[in-house]
């Protein structure tokens, strides 16, 4: 073990060091180039990978957040999963949410916020339950996801892909009932969830025939009460069945986002 290193060893050791990961950026790049261009280096590196990579067996497995897979699918433009909603319990169907274009954790955050809001006086005129809308940009990617808690008259709007805005401009959310003029819901954040209170008039108009839209407005909101800037994203509203949704989604958050040790 104390004999001097021989030349052959010395050369082979560079490949071992490369595989182990101790080389600095320059030395690393040099070996990577060799591997790509000479079969000798390629074989030597492959042998060292076989020897050393089993060490990874000692590393604990940690479940990545579901949105990583959604992003991979998006990046590679893999086929969308079936678009038929499952017959029951679509709230806890991750596939559907991936199809809708958001990570499950973003949904879970929205739902968590919705279900943990202070319980105000129930509004007797509306049915209880949740509604949801995926507000898509023209390029097809999801700008925001809105989750509506009818019973507590709240809406949580979660950005999926933060949209860029010019200085002094901000997104404003509108409810557009079928065949009617847009009604201002409120200003929303471009990069973090926004909770909005829904008044009785708005609540009454939520439904599958209505749509949500986001337009570009001055930071203080549209001066006219109607959209003045470009509409950058739109989405229809879907009803959600009662019950169970909060529990399932919150549990999902707990499992995927807890820092694992």
């Amino acid at each position, binding site marked *: *073990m104390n004999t001097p*290193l021989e030349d052959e*060893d010395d050369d082979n*050791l560079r490949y*071992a*060091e490369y*595989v*182990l*990961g*101790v*080389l*600095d*950026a320059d030395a*690393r790049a040099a070996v990577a180039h060799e591997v790509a261009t000479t079969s000798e280096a390629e074989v030597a590196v*492959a042998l060292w*990978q*076989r*020897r*050393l*990579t*089993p*060490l*990874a*067996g*000692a*590393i*604990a*497995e*940690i*479940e*990545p*957040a579901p*949105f*990583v*897979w959604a*992003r*991979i699918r998006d*990046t*590679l433009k*893999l*086929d969308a999963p079936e678009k038929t909603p499952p017959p029951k319990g679509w709230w806890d169907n991750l596939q559907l949410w991936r199809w809708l274009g958001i990570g499950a954790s973003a949904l879970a955050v929205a739902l968590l916020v919705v279900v943990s809001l202070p319980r105000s006086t129930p509004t007797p005129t509306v049915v209880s339950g949740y509604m949801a809308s995926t507000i898509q940009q023209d390029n097809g990617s999801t700008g925001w996801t809105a989750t509506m808690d009818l019973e507590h008259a709240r809406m949580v709007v979660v950005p999926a892909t933060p949209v860029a805005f010019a200085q002094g401009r901000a997104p404003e959310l509108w409810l557009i009932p079928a065949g009617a003029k847009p009604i201002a819901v409120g200003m929303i954040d471009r990069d973090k969830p926004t909770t909005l209170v829904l008044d009785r008039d708005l609540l009454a108009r939520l439904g599958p025939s209505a749509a949500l839209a986001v337009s570009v407005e001055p930071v203080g909101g549209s001066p006219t009460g109607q959209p003045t800037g470009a509409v950058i994203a739109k989405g229809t509203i879907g009803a959600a069945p009662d019950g169970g949704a909060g529990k399932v989604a919150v549990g999902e958050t707990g499992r995927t986002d807890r*820092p*694992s*040790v």
Partner: protein
Amino acid sequence: MSVTSPGRDDLNRLLQHTGRNDQQAFAELYKLTSPKLFGVCLRMLRDRGEAEEVLQETYTAVWRSAASFDATRASAITWLVTLSRNKAIDRLRQHREELLDDPQKLDVAADERATPAAEAESSQEYRRLQRCLDELEPQQQSSVREAFFSGATYNELATRCKVPIGTMKSWIRRSLLQLRKCLDQ
């Protein structure tokens, strides 16, 4: 995964099918292997967001280069772990200081003890490697392990262990030669 550990052949087959643009095989491969690869990335990068990005880069590369996988040269899990380690190390070399300067990012270190969840196929190879590692001096063994898990350079390892860089290089090089001799027997 610990209940129905996929064998070497299962993963090889899934990776080969992925190489033929089989999306279902790719999804299954991701499901079975991403927790391990995420553990590897998180241990190196010590930041969840960074690890998620590298995991995404890794599987994007898996989809695009799976056709080049050669089962006679490496097992699928070795191929996958290598790909993720290379991407994580590249990331580390790009902005090392940033990560090391933020102590808050050090609190997500993954456990590096052997876990029962390790794939059946690699656990046998792991035990063999562990036997050879056990023949090394304790300090040298821990240097090799730390190097593999952290992706740190000689320089960084020497600083952490408070030894001259020459000493660290000598420890690791001799350990590598000894490991080769032990493993190739």
